[in-house]
């Protein structure tokens, strides 16, 4: 479904990715691991269409996405992808429910309908009681659950998660991870998780190890 073919990316003199190729199937849970500076986040950003690779191709359902114009890429990210960041990156001025409804509203859904769908997703992730609270009033675990709900609310094909439990303690992190993966499995949504934590990677169907911007020979892929 989602494929990287010989993708390379350089920042200044640093080669962040060197001809990386991989394929992610529908509903598959993939962990991208490796030490700091290995190119994990850059790979995720290339796959998510946030960053354009210098060479190589990124293909979604047989269609190259790295050559799309910015407006098409933005629309693709909004409709087909969801992103969970390490620190949630929710809008603190909005309530939890409004944060979850936001992607639907940007897809021009009716406000009442969007808020109702947001409430359903908050219930699925066991944070219904936080619906009317602002982000600053939530615990770290609650925030990440809201962030997961925001990433999943549009029914994306792929959810990208950048260190989704990195800001949480082990118990809170495990709960958030289970919530994300159980929901994704139930909906056949593929998940690409960037992590340096082996315990998080153990939840994935497959692990891709990166080192110095490449997948070393013999490493899991």
């Amino acid at each position: 479904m989602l494929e990287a073919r010989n993708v390379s990316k350089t920042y200044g003199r640093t080669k962040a990715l060197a001809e990386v190729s991989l394929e992610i199937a529908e509903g598959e849970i993939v962990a991208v691991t490796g030490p700091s500076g290995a190119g994990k986040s850059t790979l995720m950003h290339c796959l998510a269409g946030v960053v354009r690779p210098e060479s190589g191709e990124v293909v979604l359902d047989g269609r190259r996405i790295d050559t799309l114009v910015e407006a098409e890429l933005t629309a693709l990210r909004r409709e087909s992808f969801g992103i969970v960041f390490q620190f949630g990156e929710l809008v603190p001025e909005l309530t939890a429910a409004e944060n979850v409804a936001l992607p639907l509203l940007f897809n021009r859904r009716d406000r009442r309908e969007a808020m109702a769908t947001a409430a359903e997703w908050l219930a699925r992730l066991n944070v219904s009681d936080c619906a009317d609270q602002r982000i600053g009033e939530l615990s770290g675990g609650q925030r990440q659950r809201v962030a997961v709900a925001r990433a999943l609310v549009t029914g994306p094909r792929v959810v990208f998660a950048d260190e989704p439990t990195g800001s949480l303690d082990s118990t809170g992190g495990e709960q958030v991870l289970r919530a994300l993966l159980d929901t994704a499995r139930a909906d056949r949504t593929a998940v690409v998780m960037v992590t340096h934590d082996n315990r998080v990677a153990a939840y994935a169907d497959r692990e891709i190890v990166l080192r110095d911007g490449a997948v070393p020979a013999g490493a899991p892929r």
Partner: protein
Amino acid sequence: MIDVLRMLNRGRSRPERVRAWLVMAGAGVATFLLCTAVSLVDVRDDGASLTGLGLALLALPVAGLVHQANRLASATRERRLAALRLAGATPGDVRRLGALEGGGLALAGSLAGAAGYVLTHLSGPLPQVPVVLLLMTAAGAVSGLRAGRQVIASPLGVVRRARVPGPRVRDLVVAVSGAALIAWGAVVRAGFPIAGPYGMALVMTVGMVLLLVGVTMAATWLIRAYAVRAGARARSPEALLAARLVEANPRAWARALSVVGLAVFFGAASGAQQAATGYWQAHALVDVALLLALVAAAAALVVHQAEELIDLRRSFAALAAAGVPERSLGGVLVRQAVITSLPVCAVAAVSGVAVVVASAIDIYQVGWLGWAAGRALVMTGVGVLTAVLVALAARPLLRGALRLETLRGG
């Protein structure tokens, strides 16, 4: 303390140097205008006094811009505050450094402005120059002292106060007191015991100053009330986001728009007075002054917009990465400008007209009232348009805030 300040100044970053030049230039212009305004005031010549008043009014927005400019480069300054605390400075030392820096910059700028005035008015009155110098320096010190008050600097780092103070009841009390004094003066008119018509002038002047200060302070209430209403009625995500962002921090918007509000207030008042009394030439000068005041107001808004985008950059970058178009986020900025400037400008314009009508009700005619109302409407539109144009011009700043690097490294 001076030595510390000198060392810090040597290591100024580029944005800090821009801020320093902006503060000095603003203080210089304000000093020049105030000195000239005082020299023009003549109790026997209404036209000259009106021109002087116009110049004095122009100094207000410039002073507002100086205060706003003191908030520029806050990120660099906050890191510096934390480093100072780590080096053993007390919170009082940090505050004093801010005051010294603000006062020093204002003094340097004022000296240049005063020199400009003296050179161009060698035969004119000069006693006001040291007074204006002193006033501007004190204002700069207070501004520097207050610029960092939203920041708690500790040796371990710097945090912005999580809870931004909301509207305060005392803001409303000041505005209502001002309106009450104006109404009192209009009712009693020449019947004040002992002081007679001078009593009315005094009461009206004090009332106008209180109303002006009160309306500026109470803008927080207005903006928040309007934002709550706009948020409840929002049909688009841009409108919802804009309303909630404003609702969360109306005070910052009120501060930034105070300069626009002042320009609209005086613009509307000047139009109403023009309708009643004439003095077309003097009013034309006041209009030019107001136009320049709006430019200063726009500069103050740009500073605010830059500061707000720094605060919002992570949220906005995350939204952009999740597929929200830059155009939509630009739309949020424009809607914020409308939500905040519309109530402020409308109330400022109505207050400006009301003050003049109340003080000159005996000579007012229906036709003049129509002219005054039209002028109030135009000034409201001009104020809102200024805010919207600034929001549109902030697109490059927005683009910078949406860069992905913002989201890296926590």
